């Protein structure tokens, strides 16, 4: 039981955190790429930002560079909020004009 004990009783190394954030990042990418709904795409974007935040915080815990990590995360969250507000306003606008929020159908600007 020494390996498992070791595993369970030591503090987690940085890699594990980063792996988790990588997985979250890839899930976010997948959402962005494959979904047709504009709101779903927005949700994917949020996932990606969250993964980045996790990275920042993880590194700040292990890097010892002061409160830079969390500060940046703060800014990211603020910006994410602003961006989500605007994006959703646009989506609502599109829905009101076209009746649907299918991104594949929104080809009016293509020509």
């Amino acid at each position, binding site marked *: 039981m020494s390996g498992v004990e070791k*595993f*369970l009783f030591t*503090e*987690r190394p*940085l890699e*594990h*955190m980063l792996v*988790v954030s*990588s*997985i*979250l*990042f*890839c899930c976010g*990418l*997948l*959402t962005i*790429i494959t979904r*047709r*709904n504009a*709101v*779903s795409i*927005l*949700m994917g974007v*949020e*996932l990606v930002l*969250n993964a980045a*935040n*996790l990275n920042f*915080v993880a*590194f*700040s*815990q*292990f*890097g*010892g560079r002061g*409160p830079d*990590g*969390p*500060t940046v*995360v*703060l*800014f990211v*969250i*603020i*910006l*994410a*909020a*602003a961006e989500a*507000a*605007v994006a*959703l*306003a*646009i*989506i*609502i*606008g599109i829905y*009101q004009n076209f*009746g*649907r929020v*299918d991104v594949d159908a929104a080809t009016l600007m293509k020509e």
Partner: protein
Amino acid sequence: METSKLLVNVIFYAVAAFAVVSAFGVALSKNIVRSAFALLAVLFSAAALYALMKADFIFAIQILVYVGGILVLIIFAIMLTQRIVDVNLSNPSVPTAPAVAVVICVLLILVGVLLANSGELPKATAPQAVADKPMTSVVGEMLMRDYLYPFEIVSVLLLACLIGAAFLARKEVKEG
């Protein structure tokens, strides 16, 4: 104490697993409401992870802003754009299988790079903030000192977004 360490690890892995599963739920769910709630779960898990990483200020902000603000907005938007319930996952723009394949490749790359350079990653140290002061005050001070310029710009940006969003979302009375 080993017991506390054990507890911390167990909680860490449990929360991490929950986050990963929820993320998969966001990506793959056919029902958009279900994916919204999966996102909720992810955000909560992220907050928990922040707490476990001794970033208590961020934990609070995450809950307050992300979950309470952004996610609520998203759910509102979903409710308002109702006719999207019958949208299915596959779409002609990007076929599913190649997308999944590519994303898995990206994941593998990231993890591979990470593991390959694991020797050069910094080791754990105790963050200063916990030792001396609460993180909130430290971040506050940083905002007023090192990050003053971004802080001001962000406030302007927030103002612009506010006005813009309000303008964009108003009902067009004249056109019909």
